[in-house]
C-alpha cells in the first residue's frame, strides 16, 4: 500500500514539474549562452546557420554513437543466445552422447 502511495506521489511530482516547465515561454527556454545570443541574434545570418548546423551535428553524434554500440551489443548477445543450443549439440556429438 505504501509503495502505491509512493508511486502516486512520484507521479504527481513529475506531472507538476512538467506543468511548471510548460508555463515558461519557449523563447526563454531556447536561449543559448549570452555570447552566442548577442553575436548571432539574426536567424538569417550565415554564421547563425553554421552554428545551428554544427550544434545539431555535435548534439546528434553522442546519441548515434551510444545507440550504435548498444544495438551492436544487443545483437551480439542475441546471436550468442541463438548459437548456444547448437554448440551444446555439437559438443554432445563429439563426446559420443548422442
Amino acid at each position, binding site marked *: 500500500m505504501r509503495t502505491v502511495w509512493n508511486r502516486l506521489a512520484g507521479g504527481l511530482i513529475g506531472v507538476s514539474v512538467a506543468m511548471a516547465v510548460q508555463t515558461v515561454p519557449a523563447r526563454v527556454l531556447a536561449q543559448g549562452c549570452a555570447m552566442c545570443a548577442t553575436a548571432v541574434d539574426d536567424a538569417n545570418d550565415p554564421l547563425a546557420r553554421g*552554428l545551428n*548546423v*554544427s*550544434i545539431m551535428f555535435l548534439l546528434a553524434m553522442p546519441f548515434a*554513437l551510444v545507440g550504435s554500440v548498444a544495438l551492436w551489443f544487443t545483437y551480439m548477445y542475441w546471436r550468442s543466445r541463438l548459437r548456444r543450443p547448437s554448440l551444446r549439440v555439437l*559438443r554432445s556429438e563429439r563426446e559420443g552422447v548422442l
Partner: protein
Amino acid sequence: MRSPFVSATIPPLRAMMPRTAAARRRRGAWRGDEPPATPVSNARIAIVVVLAAEIMFFAGLIGAYLLFRFGTVVWPPADLPRLPLGVTWLNTLVLMASGCTMLAALRAVREDNLRGLTRSLCVTGLLGVLFLSVQGSEWVRLIRHGLRPSSGPYGSTFYVLIGSHAAHVAMAVLWLGIVAIGAWRGRFSSTRYAAVEVCAIYWFFVCALWLALFALVYH
C-alpha cells in the same frame, strides 16, 4: 519484482562483462577451440572504446568544419585553389582496395592460412603507404598553389581534418607492420587472432572515415 527495464538491460550487460578464467571454467565454456563464454570479447570491447573516442574527436573537428562551411557565404573562397578531385578519387579507390585486402587477411587467418595472412597484411600496408604518399604529394602541390593552413578557415579546416586522418592512417600502417611481423613469425592461428581482428577493425574505421571526409570536404 524487477521492472521490465531492469530485466531487459541487466542480463545482457551481465553476460557481456569480462569474466575471470575461473568463472569461465565454472560456466563450462571456452575450452580449447570453443568460442568464448562472453558474446563480445575483451579485445572487441577495447577497440570499441578506442573507436568511440576517435569518432568523438573527429566529430569535434567536423563540427568546426560545418560551422565555417555553413557560416561562410562563398565556400570555397574564390581566391584559393580548388581541391584535386580526380587524383583523390583514385586515392579513395586505393584505400578501399586496402580494405578488401584486409578482409582477405581476416579470412586467411580464420582458415589458418598464415602465409596468405602475411601477404594480405603486407599488401594492405603498401596500399596504405601509397595512399599517404599521394596525399603528401597533393599537399605539396596545394601549398605551392597558395592553399596554406594560414589561408583562413578553408585552409586551416582542410589541413586539420585531412591531416588528422592521415596521421591515423600512418598509425594504422605502423600497427599493421607490427601485426604482419607477428603473422610472419607464426603467432596467430584460427583460434587466436584477436590482434589481427582489432587491427582490421581499426583499418575499416579509417577507410569508412575517409569516405565521410572525402564526401564532406572535397564536394
